[in-house]
Each structure stands twice: as C-alpha cells, then as structure tokens.
C-alpha cells in the first residue's frame, strides 16, 4: 500500500476492439518482427525504446514519458487459457474473470460488494459510456452508468429548467416507497431514488471542478475528463470505468492510420488524467488499469491485423512500481500459438495484484481462486 491516507481508487480503461499488442509494445530489434509486418512495421528509429528489445509505439509518447518516470507497469504476454477470438466472449472473460464458463457476475461487481458492503454510497462505482460493462455487474450492486456527466439523470428529455425541476420533484415523490404496491415496490423505490440521488450528486461534479488540463475533444478523452471530475469532487467513488467505443481498435484494415490516431488520443488522455489528478493533489490515490480483450495476429494481412490472442496490459499511477512484467512472447514460428503470441501470465494475476495490493480486498474470494501476484504495486 502507498502512504496515502485516502482510500485507493481504481480507474479501468477498456480498449475495445483488441489493440495490436505487437505494435503497441514493439519487439523492434527482433528481425522476425519486420518479416511478419512488411507493411505495418514501425521503423526502428521511430520506436520509443524501453531497452534494447522492446519499445512503445511512437503515438504513445505521453505514456512513455510516464514510463520513464517509473509510473507504468507493462504486463507483457498477458492472456487467458484457451484463447477465443470472439470480441464478445473474450471481453466477457475479462469482465467475469471466468474463462471456463459463462457467468453474469463481474469481477469488479464483486469488488464493489466488498468495498461498500452496506451500500452506503450510491456512487461507489461509476461507469462512463453507454451501457454497463458486465465487469461491474453483481447482485445488489448499483452502478451509475453515465453517458455524459453534463446531462446525466432521469427524464433528460424534458426541456426547460423549471419543467425539468418539476419533473424530478414528482419523480422523487412517485418513487416514495409509500406510493404504489407492485410486487417489488420497495426495491424499485430504492433503486429509483438511488439513481436520482446519484444523478443529483454527479451533476454537481462539473460545477465543483476546475482544472488547467485541457482534454482532447474525442469521446474517450471526455469520459476520462469525467473520471477526473468525479474523483476530484470527492464523492467517495472507488471504481471508475470507461473505455473506447466497441470495435474501436479492431484494425482489420487501414491499421497504421487508425491505430496511431487511437493510441495518440488514449495516451494523451491517460497523461492528462494523471496531470489533472496531480493538479488536484490526488495523483497518489489513483491507479489505472488499461486492457484490451485479446491481441492480434502476428502476421499482418496487408493493411491490418486479424484477431489473435496474447496481449499486453498497463497499470499506471504513482502507486505503481514501473517496469516490464511478464515475458515478451517469442516470435519464433514454432513458439507461436496458431500464429498468435503465446500468453504466459493469466490476466487474473494482474487482477489479483490490484485487488490485494492496491484495493486491499480479498482477491481469492473475488476471483474464486488463487493467482500468483506481481509486485507492480509499491
């Protein structure tokens, strides 16, 4: 644990679409890299080298800067048993931490149950994006899912300030447990009022917040800004979740352009968030986990890459002991798994490390098993 007095906070950044690990952390000195990637290779002189073996993609300079400051743990060769190349199923596995069977409960949902067992705070976890990721789902866990912080709430379609205020006033009274008698009336009342309360509190975040950091104009950067706003507002939120739109990193074609653009936006947003937290004296309270559902094929298809398995993840923050973790999977043809990078560490090891060493929770209970931990948390 760090020395911080405040409760540790986890920010999860989901890179949907499966980014190309090989061009993210690049084994630039391996001659095989160039063979596999005749069109997509990043030239040696452009790679932001970490050591004589690997380096970051040039668009990731803002994250590389943080790496140089010792704030970024790079988890190489991360994956899960029996890789599946479906975005949906694979993302499900990352969300539920259950590679072997389908489950409707998320690993963070279970963590939230532990963080707020008595459901005292309606904002223990907040998601920014459309729809709730299964990672945050668990029985009895209520998570605010925010499309846009500025307009979040119920009945947002009612125009006019006074009409809206009136509508929300009626809403709060209609959801009184004293009103109505349906089979689950009390539960609905509680859920409705919690949602209203959560929205009321959340809406104040942008008003309280001020910062000199200017985030990018893309959706993801705005959501990351929302993360900063909610955290600095001091609502006691412990888990903040956001990500790219579905399929964003699914670069089957035209990879060079879209890949660099996305990493540019994401890296800038990550660094902006860190700087923003620092400005609010909150940099020591937050650790970020950045992951994607699987890697992409080692052999390019000409202009892009198809679905693969072994990947790379990042854990970022002041609480992190920066460096390379896991092993970079071999590019030797006979060491590949069906033409994919072979994973060598179970993603649940990273989860376990974060749960235990950062959030101080019972990782074995949450993950329903024991996984060897890394030491990337200070």
């Amino acid at each position, binding site marked *: 644990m760090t020395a911080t007095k405040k409760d540790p906070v986890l920010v999860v950044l989901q890179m949907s679409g499966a980014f190309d690990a090989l061009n993210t952390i690049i084994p630039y000195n391996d001659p095989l890299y160039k063979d596999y990637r005749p069109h997509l290779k990043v030239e040696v002189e452009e790679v932001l080298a970490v050591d004589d073996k690997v380096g970051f993609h040039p668009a990731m300079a803002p994250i590389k800067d943080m790496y140089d400051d010792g704030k970024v743990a790079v988890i190489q060769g991360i994956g899960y048993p029996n890789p599946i190349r479906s975005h949906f199923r694979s993302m499900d596995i990352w969300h539920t931490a259950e590679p072997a069977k389908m489950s409707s409960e998320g690993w963070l949902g279970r963590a939230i149950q532990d963080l707020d067992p008595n459901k005292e705070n309606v904002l223990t976890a907040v998601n920014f994006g459309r729809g709730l990721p299964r990672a945050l789902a668990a029985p009895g866990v209520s998570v605010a899912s925010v499309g846009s912080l500025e307009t979040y709430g119920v009945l947002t379609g009612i125009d006019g300030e006074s009409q809206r205020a009136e509508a929300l006033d009626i809403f709060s009274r209609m959801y009184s447990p004293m009103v109505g008698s349906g089979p689950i009336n009390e539960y609905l009342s509680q859920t409705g009022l919690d949602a209203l309360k959560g929205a009321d509190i959340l809406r104040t975040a942008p008003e309280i917040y001020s910062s000199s950091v200017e985030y990018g104009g893309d959706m993801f950067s705005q959501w990351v800004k929302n993360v900063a706003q909610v955290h600095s507002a001091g609502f006691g939120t412990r888990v903040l979740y956001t990500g790219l739109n579905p399929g964003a990193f699914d670069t089957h*074609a035209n990879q060079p352009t879209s890949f660099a653009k996305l990493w540019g936006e994401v890296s800038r947003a990550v660094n902006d968030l860190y700087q923003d937290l620092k400005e609010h004296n909150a940099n020591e309270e937050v650790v970020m986990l950045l992951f994607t559902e699987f890697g992409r094929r080692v052999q390019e298809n000409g202009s892009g890459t*198809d679905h693969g398995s072994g990947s790379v993840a990042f854990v970022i923050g002041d609480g992190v002991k920066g460096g390379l973790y896991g092993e970079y999977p071999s590019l030797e043809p006979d060491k590949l798994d069906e033409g994919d990078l072979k994973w060598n560490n179970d993603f649940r090891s990273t989860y376990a490390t974060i749960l235990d060493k950062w959030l101080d929770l019972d990782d074995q209970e949450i993950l329903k098993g024991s996984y060897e931990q890394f030491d990337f948390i200070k």
Partner: protein
Amino acid sequence: MVTATEIAPVTFQYSHTIGRQEVRSGNGFFNPVAITRDDNGMLYVLSRGTETPAFFPCKRVTVFHPDEEEVVAEFGQKVPPEDADETTPNGSFMWPTSVALDSKGYAYVSDEWLNRISIYDQERGNWIGMWGIPGSAEGEIDRPAGLAFDRDDNLYVVESRNHRVSVFTRDGQFKFGWGRKGTGDGEFDHPWGIEIDHNGDVYVADWRNDRVQKFAPDGTFLMKFGTPGDGEGEFSRPTGVAVDKDGHIFVTDYRNDRVQVFRANGSYITTMQGQAGLSKWGAERVYLDPTIVRARERALGLSEREGAFQGPIAIEVGDDGRVFVLEAPRHRVQIFSKQTAMFAGEL
C-alpha cells in the same frame, strides 16, 4: 434479333472468383449490390456495406482489374444514419443501389434513401456532381434502383417505389419515362435491375412480379417472361439482368440462388448454380490463419456449399463472352466464360 438456330447447348466455363468479406475497405467487398465494367475491362463493384457504426468506411465503389485482381481505386463514403438527409455531404452513400458508366467513363451511383444520383470522375473517383429531386411527379425520383446508359448517354433510372423507368440526360434533365404499379404489360412492382442491349432495347427485372420485361428504347412494351416459382423459367425476386452480344439474357434469380439464361425470345436455356473456389483475396486472408486453413480442410462439402451461388444480385456480361455474377451475402464475383455454341443458319 438472333435468328440462328442453336444446335449445341450453351455452356459456361468457370474462370475464377474475386472477393472476400472486407468490412471497411481494401481487397474485398461488403454486401455488394451492383457491378459494371468499363471499356478497359475494369470492374466496378458497389458495396452497400452495413449501418453498423464500427464499420466505417464500408460503403464504397471498388474499381479493380478482373485478371490482375488489383484494386485501382475506391470511392464514395458512408454517412451515419442520423445524418442521412438533405444535408448529407456530397459524394456519400446511405443505401446505394447501382453504378453505371457514361461514355466518358464517369461513374453514376444511385442511392435509394437519399434519392440522389451521384457522379464521380473516371480518374480517382472524385465526386463531381449529383442530381435528383425526390418525389413522384415527372422528373422526380423515388427509390432509384438499377441504372443503365444508352449509346447517347441517356441514363435510364429504374425507380423502385414509383414503379417506373425514367430517362434522364447525364446532367439530370428528364426526357421521358414509362410504367406504373401493376401486373400488366409495361407495369411494374418494385422493379430493380436494368440492361440496355446493342439495339438499345431495355430489359427490366420486374422484381416483385417475378418476371423480366423487355421494351423498345422509347418504352414500348415488347415482351415479358417469367412467373413466380422455382422451376425452369420461373423466378423468385429477380434482381439483375444482362444481355450478351448473342442476345442471350441472363437473370439473377435472387431468392432461388441461381442465374438463369434465356434466348432472345425469352425461352429458357439453362441454369447456372455457381462454382466459386477460393479467391486470391480470400487466400490472402485464409493463409494467415492456420486454424482457418484447417477448418476449410475439414469442412464437410466445402466446395459444393461454398461454390454455390447465394444471393446472386447483379450480373454483367461482356462482348468477350465473360460473365460476372455478383453475390451480395458472399461478397464476391464469380467469373465464367460462355462457351461458343455451334450455330447453323444466319447470325
């Protein structure tokens, strides 16, 4: 009209297949709906694409050489559904339906949602103009589908929802038209594909009437053939029609998953069922992935199932006897050569 007597059956030699599912751009198509060929033998395939926001771009015209199998140009762009209205940027597609080339090689693309005909230059596919006024009055268009130019660069536009054919100059001046909704001669029910033969006669795939109608260049009804069904000479939603120099009429019998070939008088000759193999662009993708290679080796009845036409939607035939059949759900073109039949009598 061909008056010769046919003494040997018309047969087709399968040549090769071009395409693969390619959801954004590059070597392949995505729900292709129209095909045409320019004077240099380049094929133009129009991909209808999908509305899924993640697949951006995906609606495009792909220009490629059918033998070298190289994409030489791609043009057109997708507009998000919420922006598909009168403010849609120039040159973009919502529901593109057909592509035709004028004598100068400019490409005209119809869009049945935007009710536009968009025009692109022959070099790089730059947008250079458009026309089209939505409506049902004379000179207005509603759901344009098939397009075909006559020798004088008049553009024949099949209007699906106006159930008629309207003829415009290249720049959109209305000249004349014919047809209305119905089942009688010269009437249509949601017509789709169109072809103009060497004599200037016009063939229309009268989609929901399950027949093909033939007209003189001025719209005078000449003949019709086809009834609903899946037997010989019957159709289930014919979409495309093409006529070769011998006067043979090819019809994509969309729902029956086949192409039927007819004599100039509309009598049935034969049916093509398709025999696609692995395309070059397909192989590029398949051989990247040993699991796909193995799955193909193991797949039961692969050549039969994969070879068969599915959803043949448009067809192009050339004076060189080549036949290009486009299949929407299989994202590919199957190419055949018509074997010269023996004829006796005068040609």
